């Protein structure tokens, strides 16, 4: 008997208002209340409420045999509370049936797993706490934002005590292997992995209403037939998709809700399938192999990588600048700051800055409130600039102070370089004097001429001869090599006198 695992992602970004640079320092409210409220209410009416009702109906009809799971981001929960508490209520009702599961994720629907493991743990815990307090059960299975996964992320998740994690059954990772089995993390085998069957999932999520698609119109009967055709030995079929597929991405008029209503009946009819939640899948099945994912994957686009969020200079700058603030934010210990900090991290902000949609799919455009990625970037950076100012002010380290420190470091680096050049020069001079006595003539002249040819400006003739070119001063000192033995002995003394000892690490970093 094959297991069907349904998991739906529930998330709405908390959109920023148009925040101009002249708002920086003047206004600290970043959110587009109108869009956020109206979109949440619209989607609640078209999708969340009717789909939840449908799920309740299905549970009533099929009893224990029907199972389903959601992951609801903290950002979505916040907005349900603000704008559509009735959705929360209906999720509570579903939770009360005991046949559904709510998964753990990062509170902010963030990409923090790629930036900072500690902060990642904090956000996951925050989310699990919230889910437990709302629905009475603490999540045992984790799913990361956009199904982002790598061996290292999996290891952290396992360490936090989650027994299973969801990710994409990316073709470039699996190769000939099938996503329809349970796998385990390459670092910590205790973490089981459920892989999305992207073909069957996307048939519903993206292609369902596409009239240009060869299989249109898709009926529950036809779809159940496909599932039945899957090799008998395969065990789990993971259908993962956005919950908004039902009624929002795919309009009600396409018949998507009827499809969803009819599907369980078609599948349960012949006793070939059973439904299970992710944690049930993890206990029902044994993993067949480990999965090696050295570089992060996701469930987006053709490449199933991170390029939609961290694929260009703007996204990387915004992402880096954001997480540079982490320590300072913690120091503030201020609830307002913490709230904004959460909302700044929502992955959608980075998605809006993607330049992929110039060439890639309509999907990007559909989800993007900005006219261009440049627009999105400017707006985000304006907000981030204001946020950074507030954080800095609160912590007391003003921006000017930071820049002053930076300048000091730079000045010292320069000074260090100058001293280094001087040392090299002296060393060369000494060598020239010393060579006739110490070394055979041909070797020296040979090295000298080649050094001149390659790098005449730095005057690193000695560096060439002793071969630690590019290494730090200390490395040279510790290894006085053949060519400049006498010179090497003399130098450490003079350097210590100049008190460069403290600056050495910086100098070496630069080199």
């Amino acid at each position, binding site marked *: 008997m094959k297991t069907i695992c349904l998991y739906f992602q529930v998330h709405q970004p908390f959109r920023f208002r148009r925040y101009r*640079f002249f708002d920086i320092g003047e206004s600290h409210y970043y959110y587009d209340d109108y869009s956020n409220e109206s979109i949440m209410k619209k989607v609640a009416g078209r999708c969340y409420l009717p789909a939840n009702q449908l799920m309740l109906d299905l549970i009533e009809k099929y009893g224990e045999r029907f199972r389903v799971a959601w992951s609801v981001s903290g950002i979505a929960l916040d907005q349900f509370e603000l704008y559509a508490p009735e959705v929360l209520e209906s999720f509570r009702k579903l939770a009360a049936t005991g046949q559904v599961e709510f998964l753990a994720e990062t509170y902010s629907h963030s990409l923090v797993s790629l930036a900072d493991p500690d902060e990642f743990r904090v956000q996951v815990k925050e989310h699990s706490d919230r889910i437990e307090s709302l629905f009475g059960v603490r999540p045992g299975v984790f799913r990361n934002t956009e199904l982002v996964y790598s061996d290292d992320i999996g290891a952290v998740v396992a360490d936090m005590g989650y027994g299973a994690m969801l990710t994409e059954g990316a073709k470039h990772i699996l190769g000939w292997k099938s996503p329809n089995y349970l796998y385990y993390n390459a670092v910590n085998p205790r973490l089981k992995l459920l892989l999305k069957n992207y073909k069957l999932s996307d048939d519903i999520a993206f292609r369902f209403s596409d009239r240009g698609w060869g299989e249109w119109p898709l009926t529950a009967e036809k779809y159940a037939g496909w599932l039945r055709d899957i090799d008998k030995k395969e065990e789990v079929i993971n259908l993962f998709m956005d919950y908004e597929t039902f009624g929002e991405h795919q309009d009600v008029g396409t018949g998507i809700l009827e499809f969803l209503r009819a599907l369980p009946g078609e599948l349960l009819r012949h006793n070939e399938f059973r439904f299970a939640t992710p944690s049930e899948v993890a206990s029902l099945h044994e993993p067949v192999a480990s999965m090696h994912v050295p570089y992060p994957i996701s469930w987006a686009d053709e490449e199933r990588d991170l390029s939609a969020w961290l694929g260009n200079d*703007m996204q990387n700058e915004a992402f880096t600048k954001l997480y540079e603030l982490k320590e300072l934010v913690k120091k503030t210990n201020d609830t307002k700051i913490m709230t904004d900090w959460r909302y700044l991290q929502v992955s959608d902000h980075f998605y809006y800055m993607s330049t992929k949609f110039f060439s890639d799919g309509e999907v990007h455009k559909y989800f993007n409130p900005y006219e*261009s990625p*440049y627009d999105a970037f*400017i707006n985000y950076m304006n907000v981030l600039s204001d946020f950074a100012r507030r954080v800095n002010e609160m912590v007391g380290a003003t921006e000017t102070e930071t820049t002053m420190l930076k300048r000091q470091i730079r000045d010292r680096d320069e000074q260090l370089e100058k001293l280094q050049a001087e040392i090299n020069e002296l060393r060369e001079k000494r060598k020239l004097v010393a060579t006739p006595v110490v070394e055979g003539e041909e070797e020296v002249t040979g090295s000298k001429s080649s050094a001149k040819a390659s790098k005449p400006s730095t005057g690193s003739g000695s560096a060439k001869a002793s071969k630690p070119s590019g290494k730090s001063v200390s490395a040279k000192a510790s290894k006085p090599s053949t060519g400049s033995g006498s010179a090497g002995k003399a130098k450490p003394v003079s350097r210590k006198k100049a008190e460069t000892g403290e600056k050495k690490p910086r100098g070496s970093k630069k080199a």
Partner: protein
Amino acid sequence: MRVLMFGWEFPPHISGGLGTACYGLTRGMSHISGLEVLFVVPKAWGDEDQSALTLIAADNFPVRKKFIEMKNFLREMTYLEVHSRLVPYMSPEDYAETVNNSEGGSNVYFNTEEIGKLKFTGKYGPDLFQEIANYALVAGVIADDHSFDIIHAHDWLTYPAGMAAKAVSGKPLVIHVHATDFDRSGGSVNPGVFEIEKRGMEAADMIIAVSNLTRTTVIEKYGINPARVVTVYNAVEPLELGEWPEFRKPVNEKIVTFLGRITLQKGPEYFVEAAHKVLMKSDNVRFVMAGSGDLFPRIIRRAASLGIMDRFHFTGFLRGQDVNHMFAISDLYVMPSVSEPFGISPLEAMQSNVPVIISHQSGVSEILKHAIKVDFWDIDAMADAIYGILHYGALSEMFKKHGKTEVDNLKWENSALHVKQVYDAVLAKYY
């Protein structure tokens, strides 16, 4: 296929966008095999070299025939100069100078703004229309003397010539709209010009517009059947490498540049207002307005009253190397045009690795992806974009990385091919 093409300026005597576009287009066309161009321009004879063949046309209008070979052209081009007293001039300063020198000589000088806006002062207004009519007369004679398959006329001054050639030869006429009087005048069109434009459009077998923006104007303001108007985008000449001296920025400050005529059409006042907003928040930036025009006094007064003159500079009209210099030291180029049929200059800025902000009300915004687009009136958005590009380093990097590639792919050869397709379609229908 032979094309009889009517223009009104050609290198080296270029006064504005039209000459640049004609040059690029004909150069692109020289790369299409089997396509021959007979280029006719009105010209006041004086300093030009006399070696070319001179034809004396009827009614005492001498016509000179030259075979010119230009750099980057695959073939030499037949070039006809009609001795007309029509002489387009670019800037008001130039105009004033010339009128003073000529003292009512034989030439009729008229003043145009980049793409042919006329300044009608009583002095030469009536004469000008007479000249246009004369040009048309000669065009008829030329048409009679030469064999060709299709006629192509650029902008309103040459429409009558195109129509005359069509009447004489019976060959189909394509007119190319680089701008309409609605763009040039900011809405208050000159009825005489409008009349010529409308008649030209109605007589044409096919109309080429330089952008969808212009195409819409042609359809809506001149009542032309949409099926007869196609859009063919302009392109930009590739940069000549290695010719430039290295320019260095004098101060370690950011420079934001407006380069164009200081006229209503170009939206200079929005640039000043946006500059003011940016300067309230940042001190490490200077704004430069390069160009001249009738709004100059108003702009300078406004900048002074905003108290930003210490950071806002005027250079006057720039040409040639000075333009390159300006681009080389600019960190950002802004084109806030109120109505810009196409707009080649942002492309030139991008060639020099300068990020650009352009208005939605420009034809070029229809094809550029790697540029920030704002509405010309939206000063807040414009200021925000300026601030963003100056402060968030990744933006300039993105523009430099992608903008140059994008603009390098806009080739005149492609535009020429597109024009050739238009010819083919017209001829297929005609015969």
